[in-house]
């Protein structure tokens, strides 16, 4: 699994993991993120059970397991958090932050040691070292209980399935040309996202944020310009197309 430092300022880091060549062909490629501040670390959408070993091997290149005190699962999907039962056995003091609506479901992946912090619908904030991270509501995009993570210092918005594109494992890390990239996102957003109302609600919320990077769980990362282009494109896109 490849890893790339998205942001580094002193002890404050964002690392993205992905483009895993060892993954079985039929499973969707995912980006996992690690946020480090001082000596504390948090994993965002740690991934599926199939990725656990390459992921753990990559993570310990950056931090030790004892430093990982927080996990975050934007929603309940298997590509997000089916590795939980294994993380549960290797992390001694960790908390999983995830939507309250999914607690009873996510626990099916196996949780004996990790604590569950049920995030309320309106969102929440937590401290990671000296950093304050914000859990921003993104419900119904696509999951009915769903959050983004915003780091106001690094100006990174982890957007989960928003901005996702289904691409080959050798795709570049950043969006270069928005127009051509939009084709790779269109069907995913139209078919997986159910609600135009939820879409507009989310756009108005994240427009207020100062964003240098929008980091999705699949596909490429958006720099500031591309992020703004994404909002404009998404606003016009009709979603929920499986019912007419």
């Amino acid at each position: 699994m490849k890893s790339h430092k998205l942001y580094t300022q002193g002890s404050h880091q964002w690392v993205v993991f992905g483009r895993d060549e060892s993954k079985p062909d039929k499973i969707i490629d995912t980006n996992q993120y690690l946020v480090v501040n001082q000596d504390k670390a948090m994993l965002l959408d740690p991934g599926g059970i199939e990725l656990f070993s390459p992921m753990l091997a990559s993570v310990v290149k950056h931090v030790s397991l004892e430093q990982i005190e927080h996990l975050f699962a934007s929603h309940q999907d298997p590509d997000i958090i089916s590795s939980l039962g294994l993380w549960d056995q290797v992390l001694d003091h960790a908390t999983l932050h995830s939507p309250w609506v999914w607690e009873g479901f996510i626990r099916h992946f196996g949780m004996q040691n990790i604590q569950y912090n049920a995030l309320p619908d309106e969102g929440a904030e937590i401290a990671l070292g000296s950093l304050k991270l914000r859990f921003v509501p993104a419900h119904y995009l696509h999951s009915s209980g769903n959050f983004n993570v915003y780091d106001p210092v690094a100006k990174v918005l982890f957007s989960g399935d928003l901005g996702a594109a289904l691409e080959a494992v050798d795709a570049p890390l950043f969006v270069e040309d928005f127009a051509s990239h939009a084709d790779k996102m269109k069907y995913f957003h139209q078919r997986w996202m159910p609600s135009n109302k939820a879409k507009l609600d989310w756009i108005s919320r994240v427009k207020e944020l100062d964003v240098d990077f929008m980091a999705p769980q699949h596909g490429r990362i958006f720099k500031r310009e591309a992020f703004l282009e994404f909002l404009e494109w998404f606003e016009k896109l009709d979603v929920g197309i499986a019912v007419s």
Partner: protein
Amino acid sequence: MKRGQSNQTIVAVTVSGRLFKAQVLARSLSISSKNLSAVAIRIGQQAAGLAVLASFYDELANSTIQLANKIGELTGSIADLAVEEWKLALLHQHLEKVLALEHNENTAYIQEKHEYYEAERNSKLSIFNRLMSQLELMLSDMRRQMQSISVIAVNSKIEATQAADKKELLFNMAEDIEKTTDSIITHIKASQNCLETYYSEARI
């Protein structure tokens, strides 16, 4: 689930299913013996031998019910253990891959976990093996009990033919007991075969 652990679970649930059926049969056996005993007592002296045999069935049937109960609990624990062991095997396998991929100061802790879970898994495995041999013993005890009932049932049929009164009824009741006993034995044999297959596959 890896083949070994899924086989363990399958053995446990198969035996547990068979034993449940055997237990239901043993209950009806106990009722049949009580009926036989009641009829024999009513007939009196002529069927005294049968009354004694019937109380003997009842005793054996009750102890079979208890044994089946214990086996049910045992197979439950075996199935639970098989699943726990499977989880540990999975974790062990994943950590092994991590250690093959990466070696630095941070992986020492993973190595520690790896060894800890290996020991944990071995201890689970030895408990599993102990429970499996208990299960084997209980099944052969149960089979022995049923075989004695079967022998007595044959004697009862002979006794029935010698009774002056209600010959046919007594004969049918004894035959019913014999049939039920045979069905219980079939379930026990199937459970034993299942264990045997498991062991022979585990050896390969």
